[in-house]
């Protein structure tokens, strides 16, 4: 059983594991029971039938359809009246060319990259610091603080945006009350540059706890002997954290980065929820909101499909690019 038990660690990111999100099986030798079950023919296929059917219907088919739509457009014949007047014809890469030169989509992409550049490092930095603090010695109140920091995970993004949205409103916010009492200037949190911070704060608030737990879990799996050796060598807690703990949880840091990039580039519900509270969030603030507008505001599903495919491709390129960079760096370090 040992070989199978080690298998998941690579994916979750415990020390020594591979930071690949797609799990691989270990090359351990099969136990006799497993070897014999090779002949059990149909059973595994039957067991996997529901997942396969659902995958085909709700993953493969929609992706295929999105690709098909993105390569077609509607051609209107004559006055566009009557049956057959509107036809879907091959458009080649026309929709993609339109999307890539669409200033609104590009502006949205830039906004989200700026937003992500704040959210991902701050959120994961905090998650790492909190995880290290939870893992350090003689800390008190860990049960309470761990639960409290994890709590926002149970709050839907829409509700989180709504709560913070009210806290940003000058009339109801305690921040403005304090600033007012102190006679300090009161910035508009829902406009211009501060809007990025306001939106980033919502994502950081919502995501830190979950990532903290992931990192904390892999910290907990480091055997104690490792620290004892370091302590005997006279290492301070700070040195232990920097030189031993962080390198050993690097795989789970890489993994949390990877998934945070994917989630951040798809931001939708938070800016959509803040929209009723301010005029500064346009209906096309993030690329995903623009795609939604194309599909349901303008009814141009072909442009929307091309936009969706582009966002998906950009997300995968960025997240896998990061993964490759992280992998090659760790290989270099191993070589040293």
């Amino acid at each position, binding site marked *: 059983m040992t070989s*199978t*038990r080690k298998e*998941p660690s690579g*994916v979750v990111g415990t020390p020594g594991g591979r930071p690949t999100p*797609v*799990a*691989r*099986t270990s090359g351990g030798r099969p136990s*006799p*029971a*497993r070897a*014999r*079950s*090779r002949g*059990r023919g149909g*059973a595994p296929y039957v*067991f*996997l039938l529901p*997942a*396969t059917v*659902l*995958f085909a219907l*709700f*993953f493969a088919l*929609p*992706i295929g*359809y*999105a690709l098909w*739509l993105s390569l077609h457009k509607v051609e209107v014949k004559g006055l566009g009246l009557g049956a057959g007047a509107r036809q879907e014809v091959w458009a080649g890469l026309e929709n993609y060319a339109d999307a890539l030169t669409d200033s609104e989509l590009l502006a949205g992409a830039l906004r989200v990259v700026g937003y992500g550049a704040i959210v991902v490092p701050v959120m994961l930095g*905090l998650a790492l610091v909190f995880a290290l603090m*939870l893992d*350090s010695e003689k*800390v008190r109140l860990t049960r309470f603080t761990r639960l*409290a920091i994890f709590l926002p995970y*149970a*709050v*839907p993004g829409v*509700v989180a945006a*709504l709560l913070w949205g*009210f806290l940003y409103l000058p009339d*109801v*916010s*305690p921040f403005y009350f304090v600033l007012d009492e102190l006679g300090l200037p009161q910035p508009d949190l829902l406009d211009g540059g501060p809007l990025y911070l306001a939106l980033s704060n919502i994502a950081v*608030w919502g995501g*830190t706890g979950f990532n903290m737990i992931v990192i904390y879990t892999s910290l*907990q*799996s480091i055997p104690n002997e490792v620290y004892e050796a370091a302590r005997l060598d006279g290492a301070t807690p700070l040195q232990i954290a920097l030189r031993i703990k962080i390198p050993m949880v690097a795989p789970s840091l890489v993994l949390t980065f990877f998934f945070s990039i994917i989630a951040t580039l*798809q931001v*939708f*519900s938070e800016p959509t*929820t803040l929209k*009723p509270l301010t005029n500064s969030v346009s209906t096309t603030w993030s690329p995903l909101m623009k*795609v939604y507008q194309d*599909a349901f505001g303008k009814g141009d*599903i072909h442009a929307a*499909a091309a936009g969706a*495919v582009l*966002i*998906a491709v950009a997300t*995968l390129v960025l997240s896998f690019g990061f993964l490759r960079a992280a992998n090659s760096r760790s290989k270099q370090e191993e070589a040293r």
Partner: protein
Amino acid sequence: MSTLAVRKSAPAAGTTPGTAQGPPARRRRIALVPTLTLVLGALYCLLPVAWVVIAATKSGRELFSTFTFLPGTGFADNLSDLNAYRDGVYWKWMGNSALYAGLGALLSTAVSAVSGYALAIYRFRGRETVFSILMAGVLMPPVILAIPQYLLLAKADLTDSYWSVLLPLVLSPYGVYLARIYAAAAVPGDVVEAGRMDGAGEWRIFTRIALPMMVPGLVTVFLFQFVAVWNNFLLPYIMLSDDEKFPITLGLFTLLEQGSNTPALYTLVITGALLAVLPLIALFLAVQRFWSLDLLSGAVKS
């Protein structure tokens, strides 16, 4: 850093004969910096929740006039206003969310359990291919799925129905992944083989022997999926137009949208938001006795 100070004082205590050097004295020392950092983090995370608890007690007038953290007098009124709003549609939304999240998570856990078990226990042609393809689903951004899902479901005349929100979320690649890990760790191959010796069929071995062993892991899959569905906004936002079928996230959003024209609705939004976060918090507190947060990240204790 404060632990440094603790370290320095340690030899001093040791040199004084007769002083308690045992656990009681040592336990009293607190690593100050880590503890304070964590407490600050906890306060930051609790701030909006504390705010909504207090804001929900305020009447519409108090909300904009009294100090933020001063409790108001209007909680009962807010509650009855919320109950009365469009004949109690708020509770309909809560019920819908419970249905989507509860039934959705249950179906999802069942599919994950049977798939994860098959992938962990059997060796068969195409096993890794099937697993890799399913896992690729994790990486698919929801955006590339949700809009074509809508268009395809529209062709089947299923949009704006309960099914349109339930079905696309039943297959959870992350759930399959977790279930595979738990099955590999918790179900020994020998036990499966023993079942076969006794003449039990494959399905019977799964339901009678393997499934009970996988329960702690499956609770995690269920909770994870429950939260994912409960918190989901994009899918119902795209699929639904009849507000009788809205989940709570979408319902609160539409309430807020109307509130921007009629600030009187703000107190309803705030009271509604408070009640909307309570069920999940209660759920987490209720299950944490037999469920560890660590399981969420797939850690399997040996």
